[in-house]
């Protein structure tokens, strides 16, 4: 094992590998920076290129690309409040307020440092877990996956802050939006109104950009100023690195959350950032400023979303079952290269497995370094009057949505979701709750349906289910207490004034 590990370390530093790896990193960085474009788009663009390549070089390219998307997608999330990809939605919560406060550089450099560390944890875990991956994956049956989905959904209560009822209702709205299209477990279509477009549901990118980007652009235009309310954006990049290092235990915990969620096939990576964010909100003891620009709210999701990719590679390589949308495309890439994924990867293609590990690690380093260099100049954008930026942003998010299915339906859906998001923002309804509901709708239904069909009621007594159930209850109690405490503090300070 060690021999193979060092062997592939030497391989990865050969000229052709480095060139392709860096090509992949550059592609990933550009795709991440563009709002709405994520790993699936990146994979789809690169896939036709790899035909006829040597497998290890193609792996360097693809893994290099997918590894850094959650690094660079932080730019639009922090600077504009627009999710760069599904992986950085939670980063908006605190990153964007920091940018408004003129601390964009600090937020970005903390995010990149956290991303780098998270990515490395992901790579290390990938290399260590491979020998014991199989029993771990097999331990999570449909009932356990259902409970994990519920755990994700329970974050809604924590994120909703002072108004848990609104959070719950917004999450329900999200569940309804997620139910549009083909039913996951029956041969039925819902709410399609006879259109072909709705048969596949509303794409994630449309919901994400509609709920977050559209309202932000409108409001910024109404204000008619620059994003940053201060004229300086601060040097702050050393401070950001220090922030991330000061919270290294948080980084480590969130990285493990990321690895685990990425590792479990069928959960999908789209909520990993929210779960990490929920986690940090829950456990923080001192007076937190979450939602108003707390650096920990940036560090947590960013370390988790990079670590996720390392976890996601495991089931893809060893079982041929992709953990996320981009991994599904990667799987196709492996087949094009003539590699059948499966348990035999460890015996027949161990070199490729370790090429992935090293590519992941190296790409994270190169990607984070490039992003840190770019952070200061790009952060200047927040000083520009928004009216000059808005047309470009509208163009980019429209294009990003249109690539989802390349039909008119995408644009109409964007408009509808955008107006919905704007109304929610105006009246103080938590949009993250709606998004989480939407993302988890299909899993929630599928796994509940399978559990009930297969096991009747007995699945409720499976040990894994009980353990995760206990975690959910504890997390809810902790979360509600926290909210109550924040409420009290808020009342106190109001009373003082």
């Amino acid at each position, binding site marked *: 094992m060690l021999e193979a590990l060092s062997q592939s370390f030497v391989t990865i530093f050969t000229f052709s590998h480095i060139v392709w790896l860096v090509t992949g990193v550059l592609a990933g960085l550009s795709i991440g920076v563009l709002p709405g474009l994520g790993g699936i788009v990146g994979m789809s663009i690169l*896939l036709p290129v790899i035909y006829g390549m040597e497998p290890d070089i193609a792996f360097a390219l693809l893994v290099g690309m997918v590894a850094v998307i959650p690094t660079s997608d932080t730019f639009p999330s922090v600077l504009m409040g627009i999710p760069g990809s599904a992986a950085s939605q939670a980063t908006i919560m605190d990153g964007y307020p920091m940018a408004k406060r003129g601390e964009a550089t600090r937020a970005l450099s903390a995010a990149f440092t956290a991303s780098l560390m998270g990515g490395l944890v992901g790579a290390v875990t990938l290399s260590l877990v491979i020998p014991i991956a199989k029993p771990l994956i097999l331990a999570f049956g449909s009932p356990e996956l259902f409970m994990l989905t519920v755990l994700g959904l329970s974050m809604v209560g924590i994120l909703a802050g002072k108004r848990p009822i609104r959070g719950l209702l917004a999450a329900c709205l999200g569940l309804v939006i997620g139910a549009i299209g083909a039913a996951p477990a029956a041969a039925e279509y819902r709410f399609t109104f006879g259109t072909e477009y709705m048969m596949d549901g509303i794409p994630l990118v449309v919901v994400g950009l509609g709920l977050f980007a559209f309202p932000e652009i409108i409001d910024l235009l109404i204000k008619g100023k620059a994003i940053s309310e201060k004229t300086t954006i601060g040097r702050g990049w050393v401070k950001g690195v220090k922030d991330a290092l000061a919270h290294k235990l948080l980084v480590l915990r969130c990285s493990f959350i990321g690895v685990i969620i990425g590792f479990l096939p069928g959960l999908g990576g789209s909520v990993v950032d929210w779960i990490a964010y929920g986690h940090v909100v829950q456990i923080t003891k001192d007076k937190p400023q979450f939602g108003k620009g707390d650096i920990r709210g940036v560090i947590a999701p960013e370390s988790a979303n990079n670590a996720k990719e390392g976890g996601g590679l495991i089931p893809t390589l060893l079982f041929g079952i992709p953990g996320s949308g981009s991994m599904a495309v990667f799987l196709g890439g492996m*087949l094009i290269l003539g*590699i059948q994924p499966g348990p035999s990867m460890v015996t027949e293609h161990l070199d490729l497995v370790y090429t992935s590990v090293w590519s992941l690690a190296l790409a994270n380093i190169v990607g984070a370094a490039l992003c840190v260099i770019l952070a200061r100049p790009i952060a200047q954008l927040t000083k520009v009057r928004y009216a000059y930026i808005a047309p470009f942003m509208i163009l980019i998010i429209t294009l990003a949505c249109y690539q989802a*299915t390349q039909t008119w339906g995408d644009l109409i859906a964007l408009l509808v979701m955008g107006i919905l998001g704007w109304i929610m923002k105006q009246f103080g309804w938590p949009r993250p709750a709606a998004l989480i509901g939407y993302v988890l709708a299909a899993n929630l239904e599928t796994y509940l349906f399978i559990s009930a069909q297969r096991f009747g009621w007995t699945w409720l007594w499976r040990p894994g289910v009980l353990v995760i159930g206990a975690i959910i209850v504890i997390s809810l109690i902790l979360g509600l207490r926290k909210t109550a405490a924040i409420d009290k503090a808020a009342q106190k300070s109001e009373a003082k004034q």
Partner: protein
Amino acid sequence: MAKKLVFLLTLLVVAGGSLSGMAKAVDFSGETVTWIIPYRVGGGSDVWSRVYSPYLSKYLPGEPTVVVKNMPGAASITGVNYFHRKAKPDGLTAVGSSGSTILHYLLGKKEVAYEFKDYNIVFGSPVDGITYIDPKFGVKSVADVKGLTEELVYASQGATSDDLVALLAYEMLGMKVKAVFGYKGRGAGRVAYEQGEASIDLQSVPAYVKNVLPLVEQGKAVPLFSYGVFDEQGNIVRDPIAPELPSFPEAYEMVHGKKPSGPAWEAWKAFFTAAFGIQKCMWLPKGTPEDVVAAFRKAAQDTLADPEFEKSLQTTLGGARQMVGVSAEKAFNAVLNVPETDKQWLINWLKDRYEVVID
């Protein structure tokens, strides 16, 4: 039918006369052939088309660029409908079909606008599957399922997916199988089997070789039967890749002591053809000139003769015997000629057994 006959006759004349001479008249120099794949990038059909496209490009007269255009949506209906409405019969637009394309066509879903009777098949690729069972039931071969009284569990994607063929096969063998729906693909089904959530499973032959054979060797799975492949005459026979396993028709005979017949069998054949027998096909639109069709078929034939392609066929496509031109047409007839009453039988079966209503 008359049209078809004329077409076949012409083809015979072409084949017997000067095939190369006819093909020479067709020239795609400097052109781009767009091959619509109604599935996402990286899916099975996408991989299939990308293995084929560079060779088609090489062997089509004039060496045109062959571009794969993914147009996923509505279980492939969107892309094939687009082809049906927009493709001109000039050989510059083709479409790839797969199991669900034809399943929805057979079931008569109302969204389906396309009509395979009108198109010209270039070639088709079979994908065989193998069903295996948990050894705890004491079943050593498919003949033993006769005495099997326990209920088995099958992790399925849905009653109107390719799994339909498996579910009907189990029913025809008299097995009690409970289908649990909602799994995302056969990979998830295999994990469910290994977790013990399912006790009977189906994998495509390449996935079986990689992932299930080790289980068989460890005594954790017993293979029952393969679904089978078409021979030159259009009969369903044993898969040469897994010659030790009976094909489904043989399995039926082993269990019931007679050859399969009746509406269930006729319907099964049609759906087997769609999901396994000739799962992925390349088509040219209605009214494409015969010399263009012939040029495409010749390019497919030349592709198969290419030793480089042979390698990819083995590693990526599972190594099954590909069918070009007339032999593909013959195999596909099982889909086109399924009697309306047998189709209706199946639709009723779906409704009674799984409460699935086709609209």
